[in-house]
């Protein structure tokens, strides 16, 4: 115990003496919160659209006006032929084009049906999908309006099933509420895995491990002394990040903070173990960065921080069974937004606990003082 205290004293001394460390601990959470949360948003605003109206009727005109009135769509260009319209799409002047064929209104009145075309730039698939969904809603709405007007009754509407969607836990579909917990997970992972791993491998790179290895320091003392500081820093940064989230984004924090920090503690054990493990088979800080970065990018992208896991292919969803970040991000969102308790989160808690035990066991087993 006494030896561990001396090790901790030395580690903290070195950490705070490291010029890059203080900015990492304090600036990184602020930057991630302010920049990433605003930038990594799927919210739709300002979709520019073009119109190729071959019909030029009251109906088409009315429809275009209805669309322009929505906060999401701006009319940018009207064209007289399809080539011109396509040109606009190609040049990125517009994100989508509405094409009304000739006799659109006539067909609508005479046959009770008419066809139109929507051309969407799908280079960004997400934007394309969401644009289409929004557009679909507006068209459906307009459809109803036409039916009502033509029959001068509400007959059609009354017979339809009306959907009244209510979005629970995030009623305004505020994207930030979804993003902030994700960013916090990235933050905790970076600190737990990279800082601890770099610190460990630095001893190897600088050769200082040689001098430590001939002392009677026990393996567990050394490892505890190395990992504990980053456990503290990780938890501290999580708290710091949560404060920023509350002050700036007013993120709902429905659940208990104790539950949140218990989950974070177990998750940090997993990533600290991962950092230790990577440090056992790398010799330099550069190698560790490459290996760590590779592992982290995969885990982040698959974990559901930025994209919903439910829409991933089955194999990817299966993969997430071994992705600790998946469990932590899910738990974090449930605690913050839904107020889930530790009992609700049993599955996530025990999964993370198993990861922590396996990871640390593996790392300690691979870590050798003698070769």
């Amino acid at each position: 115990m006494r030896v561990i205290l001396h090790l901790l004293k030395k580690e903290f001394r070195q950490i705070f003496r490291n010029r890059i460390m203080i900015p990492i601990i304090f600036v990184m959470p602020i930057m991630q919160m302010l920049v990433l949360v605003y930038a990594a948003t799927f919210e739709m605003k300002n979709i520019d659209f073009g119109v190729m109206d071959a019909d030029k009727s009251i109906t088409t005109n009315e429809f275009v006006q209805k669309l322009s009135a929505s906060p999401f769509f701006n009319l940018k260009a009207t064209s007289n032929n399809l080539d011109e319209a396509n040109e606009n799409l190609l040049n990125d002047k517009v994100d989508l084009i509405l094409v009304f064929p000739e006799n659109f209104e006539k067909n609508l009145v005479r046959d009770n049906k008419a066809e139109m075309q929507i051309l969407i730039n799908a280079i960004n698939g997400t934007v394309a999908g969401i644009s289409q969904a929004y557009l679909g809603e507006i068209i459906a709405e307009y459809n109803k309006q036409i039916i009502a007007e033509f029959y001068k009754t509400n007959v059609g509407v009354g017979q339809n099933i009306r959907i009244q969607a209510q979005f629970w836990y995030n009623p305004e579909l505020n994207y930030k509420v979804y993003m902030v917990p994700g960013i916090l997970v990235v933050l905790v992972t970076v600190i737990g895995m990279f800082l601890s791993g770099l610190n460990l491998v630095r001893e190897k790179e600088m050769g200082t491990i040689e001098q430590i290895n001939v002392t009677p320091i026990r393996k567990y003392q050394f490892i505890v002394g190395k990992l504990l500081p980053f456990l503290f820093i990780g938890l501290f940064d999580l708290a710091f990040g949560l404060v920023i989230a509350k002050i700036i984004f007013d993120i709902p924090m429905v659940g208990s903070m104790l539950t949140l920090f218990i989950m974070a503690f177990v998750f940090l054990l997993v990533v600290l173990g991962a950092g230790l493990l990577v440090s056992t088979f790398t010799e330099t800080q550069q190698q560790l960065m490459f290996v760590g970065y590779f592992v982290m990018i995969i885990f982040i992208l698959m974990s559901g921080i930025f994209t919903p896991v439910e829409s991933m292919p089955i194999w990817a969803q299966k993969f997430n069974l071994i992705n600790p970040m998946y469990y932590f991000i899910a738990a974090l969102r449930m605690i913050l937004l839904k107020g889930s308790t530790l009992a609700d989160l049993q599955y996530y808690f025990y999964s993370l606990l198993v990861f922590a035990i396996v990871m640390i066991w593996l790392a300690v087993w691979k870590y050798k003082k003698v070769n």
Partner: protein
Amino acid sequence: MNNRSIEIVELNKRYGTIQAIKNINLTIQTGELFGLVGPDGAGKTTLIRILTTLLLADSGKASVNKLDVVKNYKQLREQIGYMPGRFSLYMDLSVEENLAFFATIFGTSIQENYDLIKPIYSQIEAFKTRKAGALSGGMKQKLALSCALIHRPKVLFLDEPTTGVDAVSRVEFWEMLKELKNTGITILVSTPYMDEAELCDRVALMQNGEILSIESPDELKNNFPHDLWYIKAENQYKLLQILRTWEKTYSAHGFGQSIHFVSQDSQMKEDEIRQFLESKTCKIQRIMRIGASIEDCFMELMNQPKKA
């Protein structure tokens, strides 16, 4: 004998296809200042790392202070001091912080063992708040030695402590080792410098993982089996070329500004050498008989065919 400090029996270590050390047998007495001398790659560091419990041998036995380096490594680590070839203290901690850290790790304090390190530490104490990374090479070395001694080890291992250190610091360093030896501590030091071998009580000459001889420097030099000639000429290179093509030459090596020459004919006289060289138009400045240095002995041992 009960005052054996280090005992090594039939020790072998292989890295892949390279046999780093082969069948090493060595006994070092308590209180001895023992030198492992040999060029880079001779196996000195491997041997020291096995003795300091950092490396496991493939076969053979080694014990330090009667503690087996494998079975009793925990106890052993309390009793040995090790100064690796590469500076391995914390560059971002100050002189005093480094020393205090290693003291506390061993459950002691600077004050407790100050008397032992005083002759060394007092030389750098004026810089005790300076970061170790900002010290000069000689000061780093003194700090490393202080840290290796702070827990009053019974055996001290120094791996090439003077490599890359200036000549004055090297002399100082050996003075410190002599002083330490007087406190009764056993010291095993490796060095590629032959002149340093002369300062040891006994030396083991190592080459390609094998020990060629274990003797005191005087014994080693006295046992040199040939007459050794010192020859100096105006054109050193030409002299060496001529000697190397002479059928009577046993060996000829350049030593600084001169050539050390051994003839195959043990009855060789100075005149004969002089006549031969002059017949080859080589202007000789000096020829004389000299006693062998450690380096001559090393060259001789290296050239000898392996003993069966």
